[in-house]
């Protein structure tokens, strides 16, 4: 037992003193060994860049439809050659809409999780570090909100505020902070009483500074994995809400909205639904794989565990 404690403290201290780039090289090597994660990362980068460069790489304008070429099948299945993945009910190019839709879905995913992670991590740090009543109150709040029916509350939020991207972000972020608070708090608790922090306290560093400059960098990596997972979850949630009609509104496109809009026509135009669905599934899958890999990669203790 004592051996492992020593190993932990040793590796933590060592980690603090290693130069940053060594860490990155280690991670990179590990990723190349673990092919699946590498593919996932490459896929994610592709999605990310296609979202940023959507206006450059899209063959057509995603909002301008040619009414005379509605519901054309993908080129491979016998449609117009100009539309690789076919057109939708207004004659808009599906491929272009996928790019722009990806932009919207990713944007919402990231911004929502940035909001909820900021709030959650801050409250979690506070609860873990301060302890006592603050801890009880904050964790009580977390417990209570965990039991809220999240999707229901989000729908009501959007119904009341009106469906728009910003309101959707509020609605989704509202129920997303708790998981960050919980994790941040438990991570803080493991570091709070370590020698590094004690030393800092002894010198007289202010609590806020301790939280931000000493604790945060150490728990950052773990929080990153949670961040990635949450983005995946929010992308799925936004898709569901847009599908139901309470998310992104036309003429914008998001993958979920494309599925919702395409429902009327899909028995005869399967491409309206199949491609956006594949994009959602693939993106969420890649994020999950990457997050899993991240979990095992950053924590030397977990390296030994199977699977």
């Amino acid at each position, binding site marked *: 037992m004592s051996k492992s404690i020593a190993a932990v403290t040793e590796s933590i201290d060592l980690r603090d003193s290693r130069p940053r780039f060594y860490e990155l090289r280690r991670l990179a090597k590990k990723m190349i060994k673990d092919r699946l994660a590498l593919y996932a990362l490459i896929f994610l980068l592709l999605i990310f860049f296609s979202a940023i460069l959507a206006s450059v790489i899209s063959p057509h304008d995603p909002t301008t439809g040619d009414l005379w070429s509605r519901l054309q099948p993908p080129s491979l299945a016998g449609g117009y050659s100009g539309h690789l993945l076919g057109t939708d009910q207004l004659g808009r190019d599906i491929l272009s809409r996928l790019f722009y839709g990806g932009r919207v879905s990713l944007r919402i995913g990231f911004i929502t999780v940035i909001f909820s992670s900021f709030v959650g991590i801050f409250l979690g740090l506070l609860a873990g570090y301060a302890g006592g009543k603050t801890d009880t109150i904050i964790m009580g709040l977390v417990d*209570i909100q965990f039991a809220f029916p999240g999707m229901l509350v989000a729908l*009501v*939020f959007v119904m009341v505020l009106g469906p728009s991207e910003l309101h959707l972000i509020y609605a989704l972020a509202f129920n997303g902070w708790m998981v960050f608070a919980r994790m941040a708090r438990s991570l803080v608790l493991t570091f709070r009483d370590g020698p590094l922090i004690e030393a800092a306290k002894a010198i007289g560093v202010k609590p806020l500074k301790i939280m931000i400059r000493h604790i945060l960098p150490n728990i950052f990596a773990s929080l990153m994995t949670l961040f990635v997972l949450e983005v*995946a979850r929010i992308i799925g949630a936004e898709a569901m809400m847009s599908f*139901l009609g309470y998310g992104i509104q036309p003429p914008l496109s998001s993958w979920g909205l494309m599925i919702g809009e395409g429902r009327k026509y899909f028995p005869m135009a399967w491409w309206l639904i199949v491609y956006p669905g594949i994009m959602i599934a693939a993106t969420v*899958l890649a994020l999950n794989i990457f997050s899993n890999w991240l979990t095992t990669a950053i924590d030397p203790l977990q390296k030994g565990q199977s*699977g």
Partner: protein
Amino acid sequence: MATYILKTLLKALVVVLGVSLLVFVLTRSIGNPVNIMLPLGASMAERANLTHQLGLDKSVLAQLWDFASGVVRGNFGESWWQQESAMTVALRPLPFTLELSGIALVISLVFAIPLGILSALKPRSLLDKLTSTSSMFGICVPNFWLGLMLILIFSNLLHWFPTSGTGGWRYWVLPSVTLAVLPLGRITQIVRTAMLEQLRELYVVTARSKGLPEFWVVTRHALKNAGIQIVTMSGWELGRMIAGYAIAIESVFGLPGIGSLIVDAIGQQDYPLIQAITFVIAICIVVLNILIDLSYPLFNPRIKFK
């Protein structure tokens, strides 16, 4: 023991009240249902009239007081859209959703537990890799999309199952399978992780060296100890189904559950009904959580409630 029960009940109460209050404040301070209820040509006077009759011109606090005094007596008011007591309308489709979620949970458990156990017994084998991959897919595929795909293949192309609605057992297959996929993925992962943990424990080695049948070792001992995590996750997923996923599935398959009702109620801006449904669902989740907590002693008699 008594304090524990009290604490649990108190927490449950706070949850239910919290959600209800949240929904109430949101709906009453913004939103305007009067327009939906009247036909398109209604005059200004008609709107003002209806607004007054529904009590919407009072301040939010006054409305809250009216609502609260009603709730205490069990009266959630009358649904604006359906002209029946809101609670009656809200409770009516609940059994359906519970049944659908229950069937979906059973389906996922039937597959998840054996698969999870097998994977744990043979880590890194082909089976393990396949199980991990498929459970990953289960978690990542958007369930409403999966439902549509299944309808495309099994209803439109093959005509094996009907496309929507309720009726004989055929009508249940596609919706429950679609709903089951996500919990199946998650529960499989949990079973696997939990079993892996247990199988590493000292008592397993002891049991095996004693010559106990493997079947007993796995089920009677390891599975039982892993039970808490599995039950917690199953209960959690059941709750997520009732309060979330069922909404999408019921919409895709045109099913008369509480999920479709809440979507309709929101579309109609029927505040009393939305309030009643939120209350009902919050109670369901809270009760579910309590049941999960109460089941722990079954798995580990050493757990005491403080």
